């Protein structure tokens, strides 16, 4: 059977052989841990601790403010050194809690699960526990999971999609999780399915993970409502809109969310966190990530505490190797370049890539109108026109061309033969658009 997929997209070399055979190792954080209070999509959390306070593992240090927000918890036991702005890997300074780790890992005694088994939870308990545990989407966008589990009342959800595509090159943490924690993830998926009242579970796994597809197909044999399906190895197959199109042939409307077509999408890493939190009561204080790239001595898959500094992790993987050119948080397509390795792992850190050698791209040339970007854009946009409008200072007009529908996957910039920084222009345009919209609103 031919693997399912979406229209357009690109085929970058996946570089997953660097780390996919390495089992997940648990690493302890360093002496100093920095935990940002804004690691998720939505409103930042408000600090609950102050300088000098003693913290225990799992203690809440930031309270969620508003519906779309998530609380933040301490991943170590120790003393608060300061509550101050530090550079976060997303590229701006955010309020952080800096903790001196006492290496005792004394657990907050109030942490215990609601129920013994994950099957005993009611939908409302699942939502509340997930919200209190500060669980967000671990695929990279860090959207609060509890919000996803609370679709509007008038919207029926009939399918839960498990995102095991992991389409970004280099990253293998989800690959390892699906091999090592298949039963746990499936149990959590069942809990999520019950919570939103869906009938079916669809698992989308890219073809390049043949061992996972075999394992999972065996696991779900005899369970009629769980479907494990191979999807084509193609970027950005793991985008939720792309995955829904591939697995269910439904199209999320412009400006809409997956629940508009009766679907919720959960990353396998998120479900692993949901399982852990529901069975132990421990909030989200660690996550899996991949350290890879040709600039690091030993590419690895790690289970890391939130707040561990990049420098500690890179050192633990044998340090830098060769002529290191850049450090990225996330995959090479959507990852964010870092200006320093003194930044902490946050809930959205799916990987740390260390690249050696010359930077990709090159001198920028004018657009030659080759249409490559349009032919590859998975959202069906015309990136070159959007960017031309933004460049001309017409961000408002570029909205009509789908400026705000762009998910910044980087496909257009990847294929552009003129090396135009299309994604950066789109981000710039989105900022200009919001500014202009605000200005017009304030004028009435």
């Amino acid at each position: 059977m031919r693997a399912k997929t979406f229209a357009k997209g690109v085929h970058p070399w996946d570089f997953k052989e660097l780390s996919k055979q390495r089992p997940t190792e648990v690493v302890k954080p360093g002496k100093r841990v920095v935990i940002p209070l804004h690691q998720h999509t939505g409103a930042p959390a408000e600090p609950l601790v102050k300088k000098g306070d003693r913290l225990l593992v799992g203690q809440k240090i930031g309270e969620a403010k508003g519906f779309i927000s998530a609380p933040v918890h301490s991943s170590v036991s120790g003393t608060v050194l300061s509550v101050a702005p530090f550079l976060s890997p997303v590229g701006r300074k955010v309020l952080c809690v800096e903790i001196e780790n006492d290496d005792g890992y004394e657990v907050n005694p109030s942490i215990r699960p609601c129920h013994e088994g994950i099957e005993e939870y009611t939908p409302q308990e699942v939502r509340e526990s997930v919200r209190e545990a500060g669980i967000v989407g671990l695929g990279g966008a860090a959207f609060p999971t509890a919000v996803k589990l609370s679709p509007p009342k008038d919207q029926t959800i009939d399918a839960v999609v498990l995102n095991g595509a992991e389409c970004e090159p280099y990253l293998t943490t989800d690959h390892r999780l699906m091999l090592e924690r298949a039963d746990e993830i499936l149990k959590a998926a069942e809990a999520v399915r019950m919570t939103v009242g869906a009938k079916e579970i669809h698992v989308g796994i890219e073809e390049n993970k043949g061992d996972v597809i075999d394992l999972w197909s065996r696991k779900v044999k005899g369970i009629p409502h769980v479907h494990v399906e191979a999807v084509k190895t193609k970027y950005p197959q793991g985008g939720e809109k792309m995955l829904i199109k591939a697995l269910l042939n439904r199209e999320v409307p412009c400006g809409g969310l997956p629940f508009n077509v009766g679907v919720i999408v959960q990353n396998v890493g998120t479900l692993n966190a949901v399982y852990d939190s529901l069975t132990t009561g421990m909030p989200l204080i660690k996550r899996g990530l991949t350290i890879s790239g040709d600039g690091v001595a030993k590419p690895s898959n790690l289970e890391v505490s939130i707040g561990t500094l990049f420098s500690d992790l890179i050192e633990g993987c044998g340090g830098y190797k060769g002529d290191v050119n850049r450090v990225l948080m996330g995959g090479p397509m959507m990852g964010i370049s870092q200006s320093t390795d003194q930044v902490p792992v946050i809930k959205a850190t799916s990987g740390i890539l260390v690249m050696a050698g010359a930077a990709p791209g090159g001198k920028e040339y004018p657009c030659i109108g080759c249409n490559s970007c349009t032919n590859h854009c998975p959202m069906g946009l015309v990136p070159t026109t959007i960017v031309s409008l933004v460049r001309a200072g017409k961000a408002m007009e570029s909205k009509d061309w789908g400026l705000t529908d762009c998910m910044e996957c980087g496909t257009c910039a990847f294929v552009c033969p003129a090396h135009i920084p299309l994604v950066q222009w789109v981000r710039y345009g989105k900022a200009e658009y919001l500014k202009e919209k605000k200005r017009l609103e304030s004028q009435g």
Partner: protein
Amino acid sequence: MLMAIIIMGGVAFFFSTVLVIADKKLRVEVDPRIEEIAALLPQANCGGCGFPGCKGYATAIVMNGAPVGKCAPSGAEVNEAIGRIMGVEVSERVRRVVRVHCRGAESVAARKALYVGIPSCQAVSMVQSGDKLCDWGCLGYGDCAKACPFGGITLGENGLPQVNEEVCTGCGLCVASCPKKILQLHGIDERVIVACRSEDPPKQAKSSCANACIGCGICARACPEAVEVKNHLACVKDPGGFSDECIAKLEKCPTGAIGPVDQGKAEALRAEGA
């Protein structure tokens, strides 16, 4: 032939009559003052007054009673003339110019990373809040120079914007274009400027820029009426509170972040009556 002349003449007469009647009946009264005021305004359409262009401002003055004297590029004379047309008194206002609040030239303020991408301050500031070690300093990609409709700002060789105060009209477009708020409007006769915006603690400020204000407070002790230190940064709280002797004492500033503005130039401009 004759017939054609009569027909064409008749048609011409008929339509001209219609036009004359229409002109009388459908006339839209335009306040002649709008045209008069618009003619006085500089036609730079900079938008500094907050209205859409010079004609827009003229209309707003006459029709909606917008305050006279909002046009920064026009000198006092023009504003007075507009005041005469409208029959209002225009209060004397000090000419305002834009000044640069950063001395973090390429040689003293290090960059933290190599930036490859759109050469615009706005774009750079969205990545890692800029490529300079100092989070507050001028990024030097020249958004202000591009924004100035009068060509009053150039990027110097040191990577900092240089304002030609004779050309600057104080319209404020560059102020809005700067993501780091390095450019600010000042009265032309303000004598002292704090050319730094860094609120970082002293150690950090000094490590990221040799010319940064470190909040030591020497200036605040020298001119207690005029300067105070807030968030590790000297601030001018009263621009009029500087005496000659206290300005002389500002030379003790260890980094040169605070100091007198080039008075020669300011004097010359005042002498012009601008």
